[in-house]
C-alpha cells in the first residue's frame, strides 16, 4: 500500500530530514520525493510504501501531522487512492 505525504509551509532547514527520519523509524520506504516552491511557500510531496510499516497508518498520519504542527508546517499523510480516484479516469 502506498501513501502520499505532503508538506506545505515556510521553507527551513531539516524538513526533509525530519520527515524521512520518522518514516525510517517505522520502516516506511520513501519511493519518490518532489519539492517545489509555490509563491513563497515550500511544498514537498513524498510517495511512500507503507506495506511493511510497524504502526497502523492512521497512527503514523497523526504523528506526522503533529510533527508538522511543532515546526509550523502543514503535513498530511493520505492514502494514495484518494488522489488516484480524483485525478485519473
Amino acid at each position, binding site marked *: 500500500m502506498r501513501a*502520499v505525504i505532503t508538506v506545505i509551509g515556510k521553507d527551513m532547514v531539516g524538513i526533509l530530514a525530519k520527515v524521512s527520519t520518522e518514516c525510517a523509524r517505522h520502516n516506511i520506504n520513501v519511493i519518490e520525493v*518532489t519539492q517545489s516552491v*509555490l509563491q513563497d511557500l515550500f*511544498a514537498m510531496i513524498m*510517495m511512500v510504501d507503507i506495506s511493511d510499516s510497524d504502526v497502523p497508518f*492512521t497512527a503514523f*498520519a497523526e504523528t506526522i501531522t503533529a510533527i508538522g504542527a511543532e515546526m509550523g508546517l502543514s503535513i498530511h499523510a493520505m492514502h494514495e487512492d*484518494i488522489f488516484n*480516484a*480524483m485525478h485519473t479516469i
Partner: protein
Amino acid sequence: MLNARDILETITMIQQEHLDVRTITMGISLLDCCHSDPGRMCDRVYDKITRCAKDLVATGEQIEKEFGIPIIHKRISVTPAAMILAACEDRDAVRLANTLERAARACGVNFLGGFSALVQKGFGPGDKELIAAIPEALSETEHVCASVNIGSTKAGINMDAVALMGRVVRESAERTADRGCIGPAKLVVFCNAPEDNPFMAGAFHGAGEPDCVINVGVSGPGVVRAALAKLPEGDLTAVADLVKKTAFKITRMGQLVASEASRRLGVPFGIVDLSLAPTPAVGDSVAHILEEMGLERCGCHGTTAALALLNDAVKKGGVMASSHVGGLSGAFIPVTEDAGMIDAARAGTLSVTKLEAMTAVCSVGLDMINIPGDTPAEVISAIIADEAAIGMVNSKTTAVRVIPAIGKQVGDELNFGGLLGGGPVMPLRTESPAKFIARGGRIPAPMQSLKN
C-alpha cells in the same frame, strides 16, 4: 502517475475549500421487525439497528483518517416507520420514536431518518397515527428525523394530508418553542420523495431497497466556488464546463469513500448522491457560487438561470464519476444553512417567492426557511401545496422544511446553531388560502404521469 499539481489541488480542496464527504448513511430495512405487540416490535427495531450499524461510525472515522478526507456525518435511515407501525395492535408511534432515538444514541450517529409516512394517494394503516405523533416525537427526541410524502407525479397531491401537515409543522414548532423551534427543522414534507436519499432530515429507507445498504452524499460548494474564482472572464459555456470538471472530481472521492465503506462494513453500496450541500461556514455556500458567476447578490433577477446551469452541470460532471447515482442529486438551497443565502435574505434580495422559483430548477425545495411565528397552519399548507405542484408537474423531488419562529416577527433572527445555522424570519404573503386548503381531496395526477 500522480503529479505534484494534482496532489496539491486535492490538498487545497480539503484544507482550504471545505471539500468533504457530507454523509455516509446506512439504510436499514425494518420490515422484518413488525410485530402485533408494540413492545416486541420496539425490541426488534432496536436490536436490528444496533446490530447493522454497530461499526458504522468507527468505520467512517477510520476511512476519514486513512484517506485524509473529512466525513462529516454518519447517519442511519430506516423503513418509513408508519409501515411497521401498521402491524401493531396499539399503534404507539411516540414509543417507536423513542426506540429509534435510543438506537441512534447507541450507534453514535448524529441523525436517524425514517419517522416517515408515504401518503401521496391516501392514508394507510399506521399513517395517521404516525403523522399525529410527529410533533410530540420531534419534541421528545433529539436525533430522529421525520418526513411525509404527500404527493407524486404518479399519484397527484393528497390535499387532506397537505392540510394536516400545515398543522403538524405548526404544532412541532409550538412544542419546541423553548428550544429555538427546533422541531420543524427535523421535519420534511415531500413530493416525489426519493427512497435512497442519504441527506437529512428527509432520509428514509424505501420499501424497494435491499435489507441494508450504504449511500453516500458528497458536498463541496466551496470547491466549485474556488474553481470559478479562477475564471473571472469566460462565457457561461466555460463556466458550465468548469463546474462539470469540478463535480467529477468531488464525486470520484465520494465514490471511493462509498465503495470503501461498503467493503469494510460488508454492506452493499447503494448510490452516491451528487449534491452541493452548503454549511453556514464561510466559503461553503451555494449562494456564493451563484454570485461568483456574476450576480450581485443571490436572489436578484438571473438567480434562477444561474442555479439551473449549476444544478445541471453538477449532475453531468458527477454522473460519470459514480457507478450508481441517486438520492436528490443537485444543488441544495437551505437558507439558514448557507452564509450567502442568509446575507441575501437579511438584505431582502432573497424572498420566499424567488426561492420557490429556484426550487423548480434545483434538487430540493423550500428548505430551512424561518417564517413568522403567527403564520396560520393553512398558509403553511398552501406553501406545501405550491411546492408539491412544482414537483408533481416537473417529475422531480420538491420538499418543504419551514420553521414557524414562535413569538418572532419578520426581521427577527432565529438561530439553531451547528450545521442547521440560523437566519432572519422571512416575510410571507398574508392573504388567506384557507378556503382552498379546507376543500381537501386530491389534486389529480397530471398528464406527465401517463408515460406508459
